[in-house]
């Protein structure tokens, strides 16, 4: 697991001369070469995905067999095949609703990210603000969203705003916590070293603390992006005129269970796609983090 991407290190060799440093025995097997690196990436993906696919296929087969039994009501449990058929026949409408949900998700996530980074930074700069804000931030997470979502719809209407607020409330907390922890984890000796360079607090923040906290921030972002789709669906479910959550609620009331499950499937695919996008951005943004021999967090 940890040995995958490490360079092959031969014994430590000090250059014997001031001007001929070529005998410094280290070889770079993977990172120096883009083609090799992407091959490695591909085989990692394959190894990560194949076992899951096998289990999934077995479960779907079991479901198909069970739901095909004559005593099973298709309105209660449609077969996977029926869900797939519903998905194809409703694909244009589903696509329209998906776009609405995607827009809400991205806007809500964007606001949550901005709010999260803002609060984490403010908390990091001032111990007083940390003591003032942290309890409030934690308290905001103790409110069951399920109880205030109808109120939000009442206050902000059936449109985008109420959904964005629900998503932001759900998503900003993991981002604040992850980034604040990452900023706090900065090596005190490193901060001392930067002080001896004559660097001030702002430069130390940009040069040392923030870059060092990015892996931690991405951990929070990966949690937040999966929550954000759930938040959007939930916001729509409570009160909306469009979106996958609205579609699911509609089909539930008309007992069109196959179409309902097709929409749930689309929701899941949307979540996975967003999660993978974040993982990809993380990999591109933090090449040094993965040069230390880590596999990506998939």
């Amino acid at each position, binding site marked *: 697991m940890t040995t995958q991407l490490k360079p092959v290190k031969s014994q430590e060799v000090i250059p014997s001369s001031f001007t001929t*440093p070529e005998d410094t025995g280290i070889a770079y097997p993977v*990172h120096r070469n883009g083609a090799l690196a992407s091959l490695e990436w591909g085989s990692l993906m394959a190894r990560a995905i194949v076992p899951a696919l096998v289990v999934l296929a077995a479960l779907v087969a079991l479901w198909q067999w069970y739901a095909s039994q004559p005593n099973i009501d298709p309105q209660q449990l449609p077969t996977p095949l029926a869900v797939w058929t519903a998905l194809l026949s409703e694909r244009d409408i589903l696509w329209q609703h998906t776009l609405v949900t995607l827009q809400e998700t991205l806007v809500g996530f964007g606001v949550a990210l901005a709010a999260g980074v803002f609060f984490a930074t403010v908390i990091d700069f001032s111990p007083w603000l940390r003591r003032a804000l942290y309890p409030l931030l934690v308290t905001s997470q103790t409110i069951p969203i399920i109880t205030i979502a109808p109120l939000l719809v009442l206050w902000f209407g059936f449109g985008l705003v109420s959904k964005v607020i629900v998503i932001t409330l759900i998503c900003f907390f993991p981002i604040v916590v992850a980034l604040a922890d990452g900023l706090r984890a900065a*090596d005190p000796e490193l901060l001392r070293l930067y002080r*001896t360079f004559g660097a001030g607090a702002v430069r130390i923040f940009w040069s040392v603390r923030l870059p060092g906290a990015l892996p931690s921030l991405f951990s929070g972002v990966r949690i937040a992006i999966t929550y954000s789709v759930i938040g959007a669906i939930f916001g729509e479910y409570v009160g909306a005129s469009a979106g996958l959550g609205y579609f699911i609620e509609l089909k539930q009331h008309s007992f069109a269970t196959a179409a309902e499950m097709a929409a749930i499937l689309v929701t899941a695919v949307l979540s996975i796609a967003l999660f993978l996008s974040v993982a990809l951005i993380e990999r591109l943004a933090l090449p040094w983090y993965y040069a230390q021999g880590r596999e990506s967090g998939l």
Partner: protein
Amino acid sequence: MMEAQTARMQIPEPQDVTTGATPLLDVRGVSMRYHASGGAMLTALADVNLTVAAGEFVALVGPSGCGKSTLLALVAGLEEPAAGTIALHGDAGARRLGRAGYMPQRDLLLPWRRALDNATAGLEAQGVSRRVARQRAHAIFADFGLDGFERAYPSTLSGGMRQRVAFARTVLAGGDLLLLDEPFGALDALTRAGLQRWLLDVWERLKMSCLLVTHDVEEALLLADRIYVLSPRPGHVQLERRVPLARPRQPEMLAQPDILALKAELLAALSEGMEVNGTPMVADRRMEAAQ
């Protein structure tokens, strides 16, 4: 390289207070106290006097916990002394942060920066543009045996190479005074010996002023023009000796009779202090952790 230069130079006579010239670094009557647990005050340094002349290599030897790292932190400007003055270029009132190259035991490279950009980190923190900083780092990379590793991330470098990148960063940021706090302390013996010879080689070309903290008497003899021995806590200068070795130096020179005698004298001073003021090692460790 050194084998070719058989001609031995005379030791340059470092300027110091006695010759009238202003030393690069002048530490006078410096004391330092810390709050220990339980409200008591611990005196880490007591009335330390020390100078480093321009172009001089000075080593500070002492048992662990004697306050030698504290002294370096004081000179770097990370802390202010409880008493006494620290003057750079004769100016005791000026801000010291950002004026000397401070190198701690750990390399402290930024894992997200490639080797070259780690070497420029100090310059950039001092406000030098990235382009200019890179040019200056590029110019010394070959001399530091780092040619071809400009784009390597620290995690892919060996311990010895990481330490050389850290030293390049220190030299670039350091102005004219380097403060080295046991820079080889965390390395294995072989790597350490190699890096000592390498530092000797680099320094004999750079001729920057250097204050090296170490607990290794042989390392001090090999590298330094002058050696101060600090007593156990509270640290004060117990012995000061000039190293009568020409440059360029080689490790074999340490076997000369006069150097062996000097080594015995330094070791005696070190252990004598331990007998008189000897504090248990456990307490010393705790003291260092508290700092």
